[in-house]
């Protein structure tokens, strides 16, 4: 049986991208397999771990819980799109480096996308707001303390700039 395929058109990190895929292609798989953007990591594939979090029209979503065909016509930002055009790390990325906010790095793309949107909406968060914001992302290495520090540091960096 040949599966029906659909033309999927997305703006990914500001670049117009097109691919043909069956309706069951997850957005996470389209990004990784069809578009070659392997920065988006896939952990649990049922919405629990948060590794695959990307920004859909600026809002964090689980790319493993969305069909690429549903996202057609919309703008996606992945971890590859967070740095500046000159390759300079974004404040959130810089803060993760400064505060040792990652170890193995598998969960990091999801955290970076989640926190980028969070600090855009809540530039000076309370500790409680930070906890709530990252509660949907799992990390098995760091124990989270350095990730929380990274969020506070990123907030400071954004205020300075």
């Amino acid at each position: 049986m040949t599966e029906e395929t659909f033309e999927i058109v997305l703006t990914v990190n500001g670049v117009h991208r097109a691919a043909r895929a069956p309706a069951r292609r997850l957005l996470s798989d389209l990004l990784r397999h069809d578009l070659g953007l392997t920065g988006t990591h896939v952990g649990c594939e049922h919405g629990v771990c948060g590794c695959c979090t990307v920004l859909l029209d600026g809002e964090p979503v689980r790319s493993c819980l969305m069909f690429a065909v549903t996202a057609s016509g919309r703008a996606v930002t992945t971890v590859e799109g967070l740095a500046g055009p000159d390759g300079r790390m974004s404040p959130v990325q810089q803060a993760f480096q400064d505060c040792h906010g990652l170890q193995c790095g598998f969960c990091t793309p999801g955290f970076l996308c989640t926190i980028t949107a969070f600090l855009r909406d809540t530039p000076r968060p309370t500790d409680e707001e930070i906890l709530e914001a990252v509660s949907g992302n799992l990390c098995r290495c760091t124990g989270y303390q350095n990730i929380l520090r990274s969020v506070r540091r990123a907030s400071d960096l954004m205020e300075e700039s």
Partner: protein
Amino acid sequence: MKPPPFAYTAPRTVDAALEALAEPGAKVLAGGQSLIPLLNMRLAAPARLVDINGVAGLGALEATAAGVRAGALVRHAAAGRSEGAARVQPLLRRAVRHVAHPAVRNRGTVVGSLAHADPAAELPAVLAVLGGAVEAASVRGRRTIPAGAFFAGPLEPALAPDELAVSAFFPAAPPRSGSAFAETSRRHGDYALAGVAVTVALGADGTVRSARAGYLGVGATPLVLDLTSVAAEGACAAAFARENVDPDGDVHASADYRRHLAGVLTDRALREATAEALAEARLDGPGARDGDGGGGGAA
């Protein structure tokens, strides 16, 4: 961990969606935050998905004096953000905050959560305790299903296979009323082991006119208890709850522990809701908003 193949339709109008749903084996895809995990784990294999994300007119969130109406594409995040909805029926925002995590709330829909009818989910209990309703449409016509008849069983809404839940209605909070939501879960954002949504309405003399509790996680469907006769005393209400819930035990919590939680959470939420109702009554002044049919609700 990849979804099985399915035929796919993305209609642009409600009528086209209903025609697609009239075909056997079709299932609605809205936010997908419950359906896609089921597909990924191959626990569901619908022949056709009808993706309603592009359907015009299903994204409206209307807050009027009568209550809040959420269209089928209103995301949890939008329902939680809406100041208008929070003014008319504050319980909605309070419960939505407990639904999964922010990224899931950005996609998941209020109506989808109701139509999924998970007995451990927050919004079915809210719809049940408020006595709300779901509007269903099919090529055969439209009907309104009251909350009391909507939750037929675990993961089993009273929707026919060809029906689309087009909106849900949450009645407004009456004057001199308060509400609270409390739940206990193993991890933040997980499904709750047990939870409760409580509403309290006071009479003009400041005594409790009505107190209701809607429970999640302690039965096959959302359970609503009338706490009016026991609301004056927190310990009585907790004991009443323990006697009247019928939870199952599983790997996460024993039935006894869930029963215990139902009591504790009832006491906690009832105090909070009563305190808010008393504060509202003071703001309201004696009889200030009597007879306005619940308009405005809690300020």
